[in-house]
C-alpha cells in the first residue's frame, strides 16, 4: 500500500477492482464502511462476479477476467478527453513533460524492438532523450510530440468506450458511469482510493494491471493524498514482510538485488546502481544504495566483510538466470534437476499451478522437508486419496520429513500488514507437542551445517563459516535479537560529517534511522527499510498509542511503519508546488517557510525547498512515472494483452499469445488449451469463511463452508443441464476436478467481440487434509505461466469445460 488501512476512512471514492476486499480482507474492509458511513464515500466494484464487496457497493460493473488493462486505459482516455486531469499535479509531479527517444513506438499490440523467438523486447529505446548536461530533456508546455503526455494520449487512443466494451464485456453505459465517478476525483479536493489484490497480480501481465491504476491515480493527482493511493491488499498476514525481507530469489532484504553472474565484482555490481538524478537537484534516494548494501554485508558477515574484500561481495550467490522463481524451480524439479526441497510455511500442492506437474516434480525429489504447523497436502503428496489425490505411493521414492512448527499465535515477533506497519505480537498460546519455532529449527540446522563445514571444509566454506551469528542462544535466535539486527546499529562512533566534532551515535548503539547508514563499514543493518523499528528507545513496533493528531488517520505512535515511520508514501505530493496542501481538509504535511511539518513523517528532506525538489524522491526523475522507461520487460505503457488461454483473439493483434514478453516453458506451452475444446473462462478466488488452506483444519470454519464448489450463471447451468447443488466435472487441458455447483445470478454471461463468454468461478480452499470435506483446488486446472516481470502465476483467467457429473465421489 502507498497508504494505510486506516487512511481509507479519508476517501471520497473507493474503487475495488482486481480484488474483493470484503470477502478476502473483511477486517480491513471496515475502513471502507467507515468512509461510507462517516464521509458519505461511494464504493464501486468492477469484478467478473457480483462479490460480497459488490453486495455493499453503490455501483457494480462486470468485467471479463484478464481485461483490466483495456478498462483502465479506457478510463485514462476518457479522463483526458473530458479534461478530468489534475493538471498542476500532472505537469509538475509526473514525467508527462519528459521527452522520449525517437525509436520508441507501439503498433499492433506490440512495442518496438520485439523479438518473437526470444519472446522479449530490445528495450534500449524506451528511454528519455538526454541533453548535453546529462539530464533528461523536458517540454513543460507539453507541446512536443515526443513528450510522455503526447505519447500517452496516442497510446490510449485505441481504448474507446466501444473498444472497452468489445474487449472487457463491461456494458458501455456502466463503463461510462464509472468513468464519470472517477473523473470527479481529478478535483484537488476529491480523492479516490484503489484497493486491489491478487485479482490484478495473478495474471501474466499482473504488474501492468497495477501500473494502469498507478498512472490513472497520477493523472487524477491522488498519489500521496490522504484517502488516495494505490493500495495492494496483501494476501497473507505477513506477505508484506516476506517481500520486505527479500524472500524472493532475486532480492535481498530491503529490495536490494541479488547479483547476476555477470556482476563479477562489487564494482561491476554497483556500476548499474548509481541512480544519478535525471533532473537537476532531485533527490534520487537510491543514490544511497551502497550504504544499504555495505550495511547489509556487515550484518551478514561482520568482521569478515571488510573494505579490503569488497565487503565479502564474493560470499553472495550469483544468479545465472533472472530469477529462480517457483515456476522455474518446479519446472527444474519436474525434470529431475532438484534433489532436496525445503518447504517452509508453504503448500505448493495447492498453491502452485498445474497440480499434476507439481506432483510429478515432488515425486522426483530425493528429499522433501516440510516445515509447517499443519499437515499439508504437500507433505502428504505421496498418499493415495482416491480421486482427490490419485497417486501410487509405491511408485514415489521421495523421502518426506515433516518438522512441526509453531503458528503465529504461539510465537513472538512482528508481522507486517498491507500498510507497511510492523506490528509486534506476543505469544498467546503454548505450542503443542514437539512444534518448534522456525528460528529454532533453522538455528539448529545451521549449527550442525557450520560444524560440518568447519571440520570437513568443502569447495567454499567461507560464507557459512564466517556468517555472523551473534545470538545469546545460537540454537534459537530470539525475535528481539533478530529485530535489532534488522534495524541495525553503529559499529563505531558515528560523527556528523558536517561537524566532525559532533558524536551522532556511539559505537554499539541501535540506529534511529537509515539516514545514519554508512558505506565505510561503520554501520550494520540487516534490512535498511526497517531502521528505526528498534532504536535505543526500544521496540517501536510494540507501540500501541492510538491517538491520531488532526484526525488524519496516520496514528503515528501505533507500531512502526516503514520507511521511517512514514504512513503515506509520496506525501509531499499532497501539497502543491509551493507546499500548501491541495485540500486544506486533507493536510498531511506543508511547507512553513523553513521546513516541512504536519501529521506524517515528510517523504522528502525536511528542509528541501518546495519548488526545487520534486516529491517522488525514490525516482531518478523526482516525478511519478506515466511512462516507465525500461523498468518493465513488457512495455513502458500497459497495452491490452489477452490471457494465455482466452476465448477471443487479441483485437490489437490476433497472432499474439498472452503476454508476448512472458516466459513460458515448452512443455507448458503445449499444455495450453484453446476455446474450441475449453469454451469457458475460469477464475479463482478466496472465500471469507476460509483462510487459504489453513482453516479447513478448523471445525468451525469447515462447518461454515464445508465443501468444494464452483459457481456458474443460471444461463450456463441451463445450457449444460446443471442443477443447483448438483455435482459437476470441470476440466482444463491439465486436469480435472469434481465439485458441487452453485448456480447464481451473481455471475452473468458477457458478450465479448460478439461472442457469449461464460465464467466459471472456482474458490480455492479445499484439499485432502483437514476437517472440511475432501475437495480440489483450482490449481489442478491452471496454466503453468506467470507474470512477465515477477512470475506470479496466471490463476485468474484460464479456460475450462464443465459438465454434470453423476453420483457421489468415493474417497
Amino acid at each position, binding site marked *: 500500500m502507498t497508504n494505510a488501512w486506516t487512511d481509507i476512512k479519508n476517501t471520497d471514492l473507493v474503487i475495488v477492482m482486481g480484488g474483493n476486499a470484503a470477502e478476502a480482507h473483511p477486517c480491513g474492509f471496515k475502513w471502507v464502511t467507515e468512509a461510507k458511513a462517516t464521509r458519505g464515500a461511494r464504493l464501486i466494484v468492477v469484478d467478473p462476479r457480483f462479490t460480497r464487496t459488490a453486495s455493499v457497493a453503490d455501483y457494480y460493473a462486470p468485467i471479463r477476467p484478464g481485461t483490466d488493462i483495456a478498462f483502465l486505459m479506457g478510463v485514462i482516455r476518457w479522463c483526458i478527453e473530458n479534461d478530468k486531469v489534475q493538471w498542476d499535479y500532472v505537469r509538475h509531479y509526473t514525467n508527462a513533460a519528459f521527452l522520449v527517444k525517437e525509436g520508441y513506438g507501439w503498433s499492433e499490440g506490440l512495442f518496438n524492438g520485439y523479438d518473437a523467438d526470444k519472446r522479449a523486447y530490445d528495450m534500449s529505446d524506451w528511454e528519455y532523450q538526454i541533453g548535453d548536461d546529462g539530464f533528461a530533456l523536458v517540454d513543460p508546455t507539453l507541446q512536443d510530440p515526443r513528450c510522455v503526455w503526447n505519447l500517452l494520449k496516442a497510446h490510449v487512443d485505441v481504448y474507446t468506450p466501444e473498444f472497452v466494451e468489445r474487449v472487457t464485456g463491461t456494458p458501455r453505459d456502466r463503463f461510462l458511469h464509472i468513468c464519470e465517478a472517477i473523473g470527479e476525483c481529478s478535483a484537488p479536493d476529491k480523492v479516490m482510493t484503489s484497493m486491489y489484490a491478487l485479482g490484478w497480480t495473478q495474471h501474466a501481465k499482473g504488474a501492468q494491471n497495477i501500473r494502469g491504476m498507478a498512472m490513472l491515480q497520477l493523472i487524477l493527482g491522488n498519489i500521496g493524498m490522504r484517502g488516495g493511493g494505490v493500495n495492494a491488499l496483501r494476501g497473507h498476514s505477513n506477505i508484506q514482510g516476506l517481500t520486505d525481507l527479500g524472500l524472493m530469489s532475486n532480492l535481498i532484504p530491503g529490495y536490494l538485488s541479488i547479483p547476476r553472474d555477470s556482476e563479477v565484482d562489487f564494482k561491476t555490481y554497483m556500476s548499474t546502481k548509481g541512480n544519478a538524478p535525471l533532473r537537476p537537484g532531485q533527490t534520487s534516494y537510491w543514490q544511497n544504495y551502497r550504504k544499504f548494501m555495505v550495511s547489509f554485508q556487515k550484518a551478514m558477515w561482520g568482521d569478515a566483510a571488510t573494505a579490503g574484500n569488497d565487503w565479502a561481495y564474493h560470499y553472495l550467490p550469483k544468479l545465472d538466470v533472472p530469477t529462480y522463481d517457483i515456476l522455474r524451480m518446479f519446472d527444474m524439479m519436474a525434470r529431475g534437476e532438484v534433489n532436496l526441497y525445503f518447504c517452509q510455511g508453504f503448500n505448493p500442492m495447492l498453491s502452485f499451478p498445474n497440480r499434476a506437474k507439481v506432483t510429478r516434480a515432488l515425486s522426483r525429489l530425493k528429499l522433501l522437508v516440510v516445515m509447517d504447523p499443519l499437515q499439508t497436502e504437500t507433505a502428504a503428496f505421496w498418499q493415495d486419496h482416491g480421486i482427490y489425490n490419485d497417486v501410487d505411493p509405491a511408485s514415489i521414492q521421495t523421502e518426506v520429513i515433516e518438522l512441526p512448527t509453531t503458528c503465529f499465535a504461539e510465537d513472538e515477533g512482528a508481522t507486517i500488514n498491507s500498510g507497511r506497519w510492523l506490528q509486534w505480537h506476543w505469544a498467546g498460546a503454548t505450542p503443542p507437542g514437539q512444534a518448534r519455532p522456525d528460528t529454532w529449527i533453522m538455528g539448529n540446522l545451521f549449527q550442525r551445517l557450520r560444524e560440518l563445514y568447519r571440520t570437513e571444509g568443502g569447495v567454499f566454506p567461507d560464507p557459512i563459516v564466517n556468517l555472523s551469528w551473534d545470538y545469546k542462544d545460537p540454537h534459537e535466535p530470539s525475535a528481539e535479537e533478530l529485530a535489532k539486527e534488522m534495524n541495525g546499529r553503529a559499529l563505531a562512533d558515528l560523527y556528523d560529517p558536517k561537524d566532525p566534532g559532533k558524536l551522532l551515535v556511539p559505537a554499539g548503539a541501535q540506529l534511529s534511522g537509515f539516514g545514519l547508514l554508512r558505506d565505510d563499514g561503520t554501520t550494520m543493518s540487516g534490512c535498511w527499510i526497517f531502521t528505526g523499528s528498534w532504536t535505543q528507545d526500544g521496540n517501536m513496533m510494540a507501540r500501541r498509542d492510538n491517538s491520531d493528531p488532526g484526525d488524519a488517520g496516520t496514528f503515528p505512535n501505533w507500531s512502526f511503519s516503514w520507511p521511517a515511520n512514514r504512513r503515506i508514501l509520496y506525501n509531499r505530493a499532497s501539497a502543491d508546488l509551493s507546499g500548501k496542501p491541495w485540500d486544506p481538509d486533507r493536510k498531511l504535511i506543508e511547507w512553513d517557510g523553513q521546513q516541512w511539518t504536519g501529521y506524517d513523517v515528510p517523504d522528502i528532506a525536511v528542509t528541501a525547498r518546495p519548488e526545487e525538489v520534486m516529491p517522488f524522491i525514490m525516482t531518478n526523475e523526482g516525478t511519478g512515472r506515466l511512462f516507465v522507461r525500461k523498468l518493465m520487460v513488457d512495455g513502458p505503457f500497459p497495452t491490452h494483452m489477452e490471457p494465455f488461454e482466452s476465448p477471443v483473439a487479441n483485437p490489437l493483434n490476433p497472432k499474439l499469445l498472452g503476454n508476448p514478453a512472458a516466459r513460458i516453458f515448452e512443455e507448458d506451452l503445449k499444455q495450453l488449451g484453446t476455446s474450441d475444446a475449453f469454451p469457458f473462462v475460469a477464475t479463482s478466488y478466496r472465500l471469507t469463511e476460509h483462510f487459504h488452506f489453513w482453516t479447513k483444519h478448523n471445525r468451525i470454519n469447515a462447518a461454515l463452508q464445508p465443501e468444494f464448489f464452483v459457481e456458474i450463471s443460471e444461463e450456463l447451468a441451463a445450457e449444460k443441464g446443471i442443477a*443447483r447443488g448438483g455435482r459437476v466435472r470441470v476440466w482444463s487441458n491439465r486436469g480435472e476436478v469434481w465439485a458441487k455447483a452453485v448456480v447464481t445470478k451473481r455471475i452473468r454471461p458477457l458478450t465479448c467481440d460478439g461472442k457469449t463468454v461464460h465464467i466459471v468461478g472456482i474458490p480455492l480452499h479445499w484439499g485432502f487434509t483437514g476437517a472440511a470435506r475432501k475437495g480440489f483446488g483450482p490449481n489442478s486446472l491452471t496454466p503453468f505461466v506467470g507474470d512477465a516481470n515477477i512470475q506470479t502465476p496466471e490463476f485468474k483467467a484460464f479456460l475450462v469445460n464443465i459438465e454434470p457429473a453423476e453420483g457421489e465421489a468415493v474417497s
Partner: protein
Amino acid sequence: MTTDPSLDSPRTAVSNPPVQPMKANLGPGDVIRASAMPDLPPPERELTPVAKLIDVSKCIGCKACQAACAEWNDTEPEIGYNTGVYENPHDLTPEMFTLMRFSEYENPESGEFEWLIRKDGCMHCADPGCLKACPAPGAIVQYTNGIVDFIHENCIGCGYCITGCPFNIPRVSKTDHRSYKCTLCSDRVAVGQGPACAKACPTQAIVFGTKEDMLTHAEARVEDLKSRGYDKAGIYDPQGVGGAHVFYVLHHADQPALYSGLPEDPQISPVVRGWKGVTKTIGLAAIGAAAVGSVLHGLLARANKVSQQDEHEAEELVDHGIPRAGTERV
C-alpha cells in the same frame, strides 16, 4: 452514543469490556417474565433495555458472527455439505444459533441486481411468543433489559416455543431434547460485555447498546441509505411482537420478505395466545406451585460459576505459562 459509565448495560460491543471484574447483573431479581409462572414476584429493579442492531446494508456476509457464536457458546455445528448456496449450516440448528441468509434479488425499479444478506436469529421480542407458548415453568425467562433466555435445565423439549415464535427460531436438540436459540449473550451482557457476534463483526454491521442508542444510530443509517437512493430504507422493529431487542436496518424496509422471508408483520399465533392459559395450568399442576420460586432461583444462580478447579488451572496458566501436568491439549 451514551457514555454514562454508571449505566447498568454495556454501551457497545466494540469497546473493550471493563477491566475490573463485574458482578453478573442478570439475576433472579431481574426476571420480569418466566414461562408458565404467572405468579412471579415483580423484579427487584428495572434495567435499561438493550438491543442489538443489525444493519444489513453494512453486512458483508462474512459469517464471523456465526463463528463467534459457535466459539462463545461452545457449540459444534455439523460439517455438512454444499447444496448449491452459501448458507451453512442450511438452517438454524441447536448447535448454530445464528445464520447468514443470502438472497439474490433483481430490483425491478432500479434494474440493479442486489445480493441481500441477513443475519438470522432470535429477535428477543418484547412480547415473546416462545415464552407465551412454553408450558415448562421457568424454561424461558425475560429479563428487564429485554433479553429472552432459555433455561435449558427446565426445558422439556416439547417444541412449543418453535410454534410460538413468529420468526421460526428455536431448535430442539435430538441429543438432549432441549430447545436452543440465541441468548443475546446474556452471560456476556451480565458482566458488561456485548454479544460475541457484535464483537466479531468486522464492519460494525452488528452493534449493541441501549435500545434508545441503537434506534438513534439506526435512524442515522437510514438517512445515509436514503442519500444513496434507497428511498424505502427503514428500521425493522416489528410492533406486532411489541418491538424487539434485536432489530434491523433494511434498504427495502417496505419489503422485509426480500430478506430471506423476514415476516411482514409478525404476530404471535392466535393459537398460542389461546392455549397459553391452559398449558400454564398444566405446567403448574405438574410441578407444584410451591416449587416455582426455587426453580427460578436455582436455575439462574448457576450462571457464570467458576469451580475452584477452573480457577486454580487458570492461575497456573497465567503464572507459569503452561497447563498443569495432566491437562492434555486437544
